[in-house]
């Protein structure tokens, strides 16, 4: 009899009426089987990481909840933190059907910013490729990611077909995909080489890739920082591109990277001179100069239009 029951003066329960007695007495198949000694038990299938089931997050109630989150608190938060300037949405007007949005990646804020920037009809039928090891590490973070941003797990630490099959199936079902081909957030403000995932999926599913450049989110919440600092951001959508017949995933990934780099150039300079450099394959690279850390950080300052603006001479002469 428990101490509490004794203190409350409850009568003692006879052993015959205790449920635990019967639970302990129950045998297989009412009870789980025990593993014989000397036999290795089957490994328990993980339900986190790449195995996290996100089907429920694409049911109608979950989609409605996500639409409410994206168009409500997420939009407000993005407007307050990032003051986004959205450019190039007109380049998407002639597109029809699902597309793959391939963007550079600086910050956790990129996804909310893009989800609130991508226009209809894609905004509310989009999945986001999210790192399986990071976003789907636990059931709680996985559920939140799947519900709030429509994330699906993408393996980035090992080669596996599961992620690609899931993404391809969903694209075939009419879902658009937002993916960061760099594979993770920028560690130092410069971009990282694009991996082939977006290019491979485009070639496999036959849907176009829309290059997207995000600028400024690194100033708000860069990798390693926990508290956001409000600043201005720019999202620039490029023209949709498709792999050509003689282009494999690696080459197409390089072309997507060049297109994003051209958009970055367009953001920091002007469209025509950016196009001139793009045609001459002379756009500044997303990955920055191949130099030591301080020189890379130093060079980063040049990419900000605000940083390049000269201060006015005073007094005026």
């Amino acid at each position, binding site marked *: 009899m428990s101490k509490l029951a004794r203190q409350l003066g409850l009568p003692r329960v006879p052993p015959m009426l205790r449920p635990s007695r019967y639970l302990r007495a129950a045998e297989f198949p009412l009870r789980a089987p025990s593993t014989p000694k000397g036999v290795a038990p089957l490994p328990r299938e993980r339900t986190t990481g790449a195995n996290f089931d996100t089907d429920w997050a694409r049911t109608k109630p979950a989609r409605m909840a996500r639409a409410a989150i994206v168009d409500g608190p997420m939009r407000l938060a993005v407007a307050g933190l990032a003051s986004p300037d959205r*450019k*190039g949405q*007109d380049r998407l*007007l*002639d597109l029809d059907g699902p597309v793959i949005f391939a963007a550079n990646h600086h910050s956790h804020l990129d996804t909310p910013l893009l989800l609130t920037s991508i226009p209809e009809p894609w905004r509310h039928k989009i999945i986001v490729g999210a790192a399986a090891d990071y976003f789907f590490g636990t059931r709680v973070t996985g559920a939140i990611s799947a519900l709030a941003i429509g994330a699906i797990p993408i393996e980035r630490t090992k080669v596996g077909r599961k992620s690609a099959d899931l993404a391809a199936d969903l694209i075939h079902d009419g879902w658009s995909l937002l993916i960061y081909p760099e594979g993770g957030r920028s560690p130092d403000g410069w971009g990282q080489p694009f991996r082939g995932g977006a290019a491979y999926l485009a070639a496999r599913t036959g849907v176009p890739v829309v290059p997207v450049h995000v600028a400024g989110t690194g100033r708000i919440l860069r990798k390693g920082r926990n508290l956001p600092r409000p600043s201005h951001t720019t999202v620039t959508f490029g023209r949709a591109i498709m792999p050509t017949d003689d282009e494999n995933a690696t080459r197409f990934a390089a072309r997507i990277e060049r297109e994003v780099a051209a958009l970055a150039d*367009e953001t920091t300079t*002007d*469209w*025509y*001179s950016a*196009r*001139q450099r*793009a*045609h*001459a394959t002379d756009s500044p690279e997303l990955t920055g100069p191949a130099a030591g850390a301080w020189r890379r950080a130093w060079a980063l300052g040049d990419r900000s239009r605000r940083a390049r603006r000269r201060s006015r001479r005073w007094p005026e002469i």
Partner: protein
Amino acid sequence: MATDPRHRSPRPGFVLNVDRQTPPLLFHHGDNFRLEKLPADRTRVIYPAEPLPGLPDPEESIRQALLNPIDDDPLPELLTPGMKLTIAFDDLSLPLPSMRKPDIRQRIIEQVLDMAAAAGVDDVHLIAALALHRRMTEDELRHALGDRVYDAFAPQGALYNHDAEDPDGMVELGHTRHDEAVTMNKRAAESDLLVYVNLNIVSMDGGWKSTATGLSGYSGIKHHHNVKTMRESKSFMDRHSSELHHSNWRQGEVIKNHGPRIFQIETTINNNTFGYDGALSLLQKREWEWTAKDRITFMGMKKGLDLMPAAQRRQIFNGWKAPYELTSVQAGNVESVHEVTLENCFKQHLVPVEGQTDVLAFGLPYICPYNVNSVMNPILVMCLGLGYFFNMYRGKPLVREGGVLIMSHPTPWEFHPVHHPSYIDFFEQLLAETTDPIELEQKYEKQFAEDEWYIHLYRNSYAYHGVHPFYMWYWGSHALEWLGKVIIVGGDPRAVRRLGFQPASTMQDALEMASDTVGSSPSITYMHNPPILMADVT
């Protein structure tokens, strides 16, 4: 008429004979509408064609047009690194109303510039070919060309409005065999290549008129913008019967021989002015096809507009951007391109009509080429009615000589003081003296054209050139000579009388007044326009 052609084949325009079952018909009435019952058995209504389907992939169509031009080399072959390239484009008078973003000009110019960027062309200027129209504002340029193009060129001073009064910015290229002077924007004239981006909303636009008028000045334009030319243009919507175009084509010969190499890009759009859904879509439907929802919408809209102050009504209508779709794009040699453009234009607009009528009626909408984001003043009412709508014919005018024209428009005595300063003086001083276009031309045109203050406002403010109201009056001179009487229904009586026309309170009154000229039982034709139609009268 609002059936989305993506789901159904668009129906051509047609002529309806009005009977007792015909419902009251919709008339545009400035920034409002009227429903009018027209006499049965002697009235016919000409309805425009439903919108033709737009090109499925406009970007690719534009690219193909630039790569496979008509009677010219592909554009990339004309672009070289050290060259001087000028891109001129139609101004805010096209299309009407302004179209939803992205504007066709933006789509084309971005592709032209992308090819120029690939060729490494550095010296590029973009010029709004506005002739003697008012300058476009930054917002209007951004709307037409997009932010990308504006931000790339305007800050460097490489995107600007044509200035026909800049003494250092114009050159004379020569004279035609009829001794017509040909002047042109100096930058355009001295370029290695002039790419002209045109937008044809009606068959009057495009061809040599784009450069010979759009980039010219008063000394060149006056040779075809005059009473004699306009009276001999029957009509100026039919290029091959238009003296206006013959004169422009002669000037084009001079440009061809002494001016820059021109790569002409012309486009046509469909009749999707008011959309397939939304409150205004009913304006594209035939009245007997209005659903209960359409009828409720119309009643609500009409009531709301009746209660609204004029300025608010104007603001609402000026905010409407038409969902036009591109129906064709062709590029290359000016003359060859324009013939294809005309064919495509006529495909959308032409409606066969048998015989003329005693009384022609139409409702004038809130907009004409010269009051975009502005006020439709009485002179523009005259120009839109007697100039544009009257001339929407091929063959012979819809109304017989000596017939009556009835227009529906509020015709307020109201002017935009910034956009139309010379119009005010023209209306209040000159029209009080005479409405005869020849007398106005001979006595006052030069004075207004050379007035220093008007020139200053044209160059530095956002004013139409001092001579512009004269051209508006000349635009209607063919109709003025042809018609026996002009009646405006629902107009400000003072303003209507100043124009030399007769005011009527109702359509019944107007028909009664018309009987003095055309008898008691005249034939009536109602041109149900816009969306645009052009009568092919046989």
